[in-house]
């Protein structure tokens, strides 16, 4: 079987990508100038506000706590999801045992989790990290499980026939074949973690990007709200670039390890 290739993502973006982005920004500017609504400020106004708001004090008061919470929640989800997903993909019985519970929990909307998290974990970071981890767990888990499950059985049989040990089969056949789908899940979850971070910070908070955006909404500080949303987009973009770097390393390492194969 062929090793699945990694999808070149944002880093493959060239001038065209930025041109399209600029087109989007330009369209916004024109539309908002035409509409004149207070809820639809111009890009110029948002950029001015952005520069004024995102100075060091606000960055350390809101952005740092958010990123820490997200990192913890996502890390927890990545670890649990990968291990549990691979285990469920490998052992059918475990899968059958856990599947109903997983499907049940997965369908629980994060906003509904918040009262429970507040009651059990309090108003500190723990409850937010829990909500983030809980919500971003499922795409990783499902993709890891399906990835393991979709590995060509014939490949495994062949590898065994060639005398590869179980560990070698796992490393050389199952892992490389699973990796792309696992990473697809990790990537989806990164988005989910970002989104849940915002939702989780909207209750029982006094800081964080989610709180900042919600509070700006409540204070009718519309340009500030957009400045928060834009920063969210920008951070999401940067986190994704970092993610792709890691993904590239890991997957090329796997390709390298496969190349040794006779």
């Amino acid at each position, binding site marked *: 079987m062929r090793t699945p290739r990694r999808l070149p993502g944002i880093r*493959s973006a060239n001038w065209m990508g930025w041109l*399209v982005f600029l087109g989007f920004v330009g369209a916004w500017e024109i539309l908002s100038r035409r509409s004149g609504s207070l809820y639809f400020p111009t890009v110029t106004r948002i950029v001015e506000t952005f520069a004024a708001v995102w100075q060091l004090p606000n960055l350390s008061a809101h952005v740092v706590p958010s990123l820490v919470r997200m990192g913890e929640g996502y890390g927890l989800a990545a670890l649990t999801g990968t291990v549990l997903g691979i285990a469920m993909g490998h052992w059918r019985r475990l899968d*059958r*045992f856990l599947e109903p519970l997983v499907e049940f929990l997965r*369908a629980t*909307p994060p906003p509904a989790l918040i009262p429970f998290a507040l*009651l059990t974990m309090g108003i500190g970071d723990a409850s937010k990290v829990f909500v983030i981890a809980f919500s971003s767990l*499922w795409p990783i888990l499902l993709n890891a499980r399906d990835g393991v499950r979709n590995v060509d059985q014939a490949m495994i049989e062949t590898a065994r026939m060639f005398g590869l040990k179980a560990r070698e089969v796992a490393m050389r056949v199952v892992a490389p074949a699973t990796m792309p789908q696992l990473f697809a899940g990790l990537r989806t979850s990164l988005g989910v973690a970002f989104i849940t971070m915002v939702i989780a910070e909207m209750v029982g908070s006094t800081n964080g990007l989610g709180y900042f955006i919600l509070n700006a909404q409540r204070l009718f500080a519309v340009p500030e709200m957009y400045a928060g949303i834009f920063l969210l987009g920008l951070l999401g973009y940067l986190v994704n670039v970092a993610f792709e770097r890691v993904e590239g390393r890991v997957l090329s390492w796997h390709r390298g390890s496969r190349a040794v194969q006779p």
Partner: protein
Amino acid sequence: MRPERRGFDRWASVVGAVLVWEAVSQIGILHPAFFPPPSRVLVALVLELRTGEIPKHAWVTLTAYARGLVLALAVGIPWGVLLGRVRSLRRASAVLIEMLRPIPSVAIIPVAILLLGIGEEMRFAVACYAAVWPLLFNTTYGVYNTDPVLVDTARIFGFAPWEVLLRVVVPSALPFIATGVRVSSAVALIVTVTAEMVAGTGGLGFYVKATELGGRIPEMYGGILLLGTLGYLLNHLLRAAEGRALRWYRGAMGRAEEVGG
């Protein structure tokens, strides 16, 4: 394995979780008034079901969810196939997609309300926005990973580009797409419910919010339980559909190969 045993296997984890919940609440580790035991939640849910109001709410939620998901499918899959196949498109849209994707639907709901109003359009547009990303990414990944040898072979055998797409590319991406559909389905349901909580005249999200505001905690958890069940059933439905689609597609592929050979 005997079927009864499998049945037990399947539900043991759920039964276990429910028992733990009951115990935690009954013993008072968590205050039963604010975290009611499942027995009370179930009684509340049954009483509410008998008034006949909940099925109406469930129907509202389901239709909004279905519209959001179908729209996400109609947008996400073709777009993903394009991005997976056409390098320049992938490059051109990468920045915009990566900037939009991390923006949560909750943050854009006020904007959506302003532009689209408070009707169903707003709710299903928001659901579609959130649900499209997993589909888009899984489809792109899957399509991009089609074996180039297969594609070249199909070309050499004189398949037209669209035939290559339908007979080689899409079938090989299908497992990825299927996973994307299931993730998107869950996202669509969650976002629909969230939007109903924020602005709604009906739907299970509205029901949960209203019972919460009324201080009826068992009823609120009853609504959440129902949402979980709904998500579970929808996922099962999708699984069954997925199995069929995969079998059908593989069957079609097999025939195509026979014809081609």
